[in-house]
């Protein structure tokens, strides 16, 4: 690992410590499990990124800006991998922030609808794109599993595990551009697509990503990601049909 990523990693750690309270040298050392050598911290101070006041550590304006950008990219990356690709995000996203340019991150952020929290539930620092289009707070592309019952949406993309699955879904007309309507989400997902009712597992439903069209911009839209499926209490079992919520 070269020096710049080591430094970036330290900045990210400091940001995370700051989110939980105050950052001190001791806490930083603990969180890095002994991988912290004194001169790395000194070098950050030399570069004018971090101020040290006895044990307490704080960002300079320059350091804070850089750390914010890193954290934002990392968490947007996690969201992308989690929401869109539906895969494990831990290993893939940790390299993300060292590669992507700000414009690309803003682009992904816009595509995802300016998410506010990473899959772990930590806040994602806002980018310029979020400030410009602050009224769009809802995600644009979501997995089918996040639709409301009775809601209609256009398929954005489908992640298929195999050619067979691609053929199966394509022949059922579940493909980019087709319109699907969610009828039921328990005990199985049931959607209507091209006149046919199709039942499927949550796993298949999660691989189908849809555009939320005509989603009214609302001020407060609590993140609905990682909603546990099938663990709903019985009093929330709804027949659906004319939509619920909203």
């Amino acid at each position: 690992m070269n020096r710049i990523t080591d430094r970036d990693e330290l900045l990210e750690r400091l940001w995370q410590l700051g989110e939980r309270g105050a950052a001190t040298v001791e806490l930083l050392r603990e969180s890095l499990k002994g991988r912290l050598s004194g001169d790395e911290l000194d070098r950050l101070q030399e570069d004018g990124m971090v101020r040290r006041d006895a044990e307490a550590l704080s960002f300079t304006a320059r350091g804070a800006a850089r750390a914010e950008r890193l954290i934002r990219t990392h968490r947007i990356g996690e969201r992308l991998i989690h929401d869109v690709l539906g895969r494990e995000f831990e290993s893939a996203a940790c390299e993300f922030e060292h590669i992507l340019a700000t414009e690309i991150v803003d682009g992904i952020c816009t595509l995802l609808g300016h998410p506010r929290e990473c899959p772990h539930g930590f806040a994602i620092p806002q980018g310029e794109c979020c400030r410009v289009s602050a009224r769009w707070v809802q995600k644009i592309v979501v997995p089918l599993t996040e639709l409301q019952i009775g809601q209609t949406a256009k398929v954005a993309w489908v992640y298929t595990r195999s050619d067979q699955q691609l053929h199966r879904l394509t022949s059922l007309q579940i493909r980019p551009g087709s319109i699907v309507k969610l009828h039921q989400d328990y005990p199985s997902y049931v959607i209507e697509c091209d006149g046919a009712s199709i039942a499927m597992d949550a796993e298949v439903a999660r691989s189908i990503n849809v555009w939320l069209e005509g989603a009214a911009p609302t001020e407060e839209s609590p993140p609905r990601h990682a909603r546990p499926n099938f663990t709903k209490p019985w009093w929330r079992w709804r027949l659906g049909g004319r939509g619920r919520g909203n």
Partner: protein
Amino acid sequence: MMREEARVPRLTQLDPHPVGRDPRFTGPDPHLTEHVKCIAVVGLPNSGKSQLCNSLTGTYALVSNYPQTTVAVSTHRITVEGKAWEVTDTPGLHGLFIQSEEELVVRALLFEHRPDVIVQCVDANRFRESLLLTADLLGLGVPLVLVLTAVGETARRGIQLDTSSLGRLLGVPVIASPSPGAGVPELRRLLLGAIPAPRPLEYGDALEGAVNKIQQLLPPVSPFPRASALLLLENDPSFTGATMNGRSAHVEEIRSGLAGTAPRMIADRRTEWVDEVATQVSRNTPVVRAGPRFSETFARMCRHPLYGLPLLALFLGLLYVMVVYVAGALSLFLTMAVTDPVVRAVGILLPQGFWKDLLIGSHGLLTLGLFNSLTTVLPILSVFFLFFGLLEDVGYLPNLAILTRRVSAKLGITGNAVIPLVLGFGCKTMATMTARTLQSRKEKIIVIALIAFAIPCSAQMGLSIAILGAHGLRYFIAAFGFLAVAEVGAGLLLNRLIPADSEGQFIQELPPIRVPRFAAVARKTGYRLLWFLREAIPIFLVAALAMFAIERLGVLALLKTALKPFITGWLGLPLDMVDALLLTFARSEAAAGLILKMSREGALNGVQAIVAVILITTFAQCFANIAAMFREVRARAALLIMVSIYAASLLYTGAVRAALTAAAGALGL
């Protein structure tokens, strides 16, 4: 089961990888010197192929409102203007790229026997999905005729399909069939003049180039070289080996020379074409409705955990009332009006002795054979089949499968295996054959074992309800509760014992809920009863004769002495149940008929009736189902399943009896 057994001999079981050609399709016919032309009727699952074949040929094959009613190819001969044609009904097909084993059978039929005309049933409800198949069929260069089914339903939803412009676009004749059977005279007329369609679907320079190169690699006599080349390009795993003789490396090279992945490029081009055609042919006029359609609400309620279970209970309750009160009364009436007078007359006419015993003794040809089937079993089956046929026509069963999916997942049934399991309540044999669509071997074995074990098929269920109904509703609930426990327990056990393999993903098309057509249901019930009679009466008679013989020879008495501790001790049943147990080896209905008679005559108490019902449901295996099991899984596995089921059945029934005797007072039984 019995009503399907009549069909089985007529089915042509096609090897998915046929070596030679089936002489039935191509060989010289002894009665006709000219070439018999073949028509293959293909289409998506549940698109009305069997319905069309029935109308076209005037014969009858089971039709239902759910996918996979037909799981094997069946052929009938018709005459159109003096010329003989063979009409072949096929299982559902989505496209030439194969998605399951019964589709493989259809593709094998098309490729090996090269029909002279292909008739595609196009379900207007799933127009685009059907067009994907049309795209593949047009590429074969075989004369093609499209029959649009369910156009009435789509029209009510505000979608109009322009048949004439569809025909012009595709260059093939198109017939609209707004109701089942309509358009058949026109189809017959068109068959005579059907010509190969112009090839409409070009895949673009890159793909066409690749297809051409692969075509040159194919053996010179390959059927449908273009379609074969496309399948090889798409990398259909079921197609590669047989035709290529080690030239697959070249294909791989051509495939990797493309700018994208071939399957996706081909799929994209096809969907583009489908969209083009569909937008030109269909017109949408939005139908304004106050709320969701009743059929949709009903379907949703059937699948819903909160509303679905009461609905299921309601249907079961209706079934109970129909069988116990309507069919039971009918059966009692027939017994009094027919059986009793005849038996009395024979008793008066014949002297005591051999002939009297042969006809009206306890194992008489008339009593145990003819009247058992006609006056005891038949009325119950009529009512049951009628009710069950209504549910089938409505399209209830697949929706029930969704409801029970969570439970079945616990039993190791994760994928599309729920449907065969639910279909087991109709006919075990057909359900076992449907299990061939499953990819996972583990699921296949679990499903086949569970179908054979504690699921009562429609005939068993009807008779069981009648037996238990003679004692009261709570006996019916108790017996079916015990059967459910047995089934769930067996599933849990098998799920633990059998190592996991590929986990099937659950994607299932659901049929639209339809208002049942009473004429069609009545016809279906009529045919089921006819098949039952044609097949069961001889078996009932032979079984009665065999029982009579072993009684005369003293074997029955020996058997009863030998089995006494088991029957009266372990199972707590009267010793005469040995007769019923022996009859299960012939037909479970014969045994059930005898038990029903015993139950009505007071020879069985309520607890004994429960034990007897559980015993015949789990122990009695019909021959057709055993044969189907041996076809679908390897002989060793099938044998193992059979032996385990016999052992489990006897153990479980005994355990239930012990539990019931211990708790009879507390349960009020």
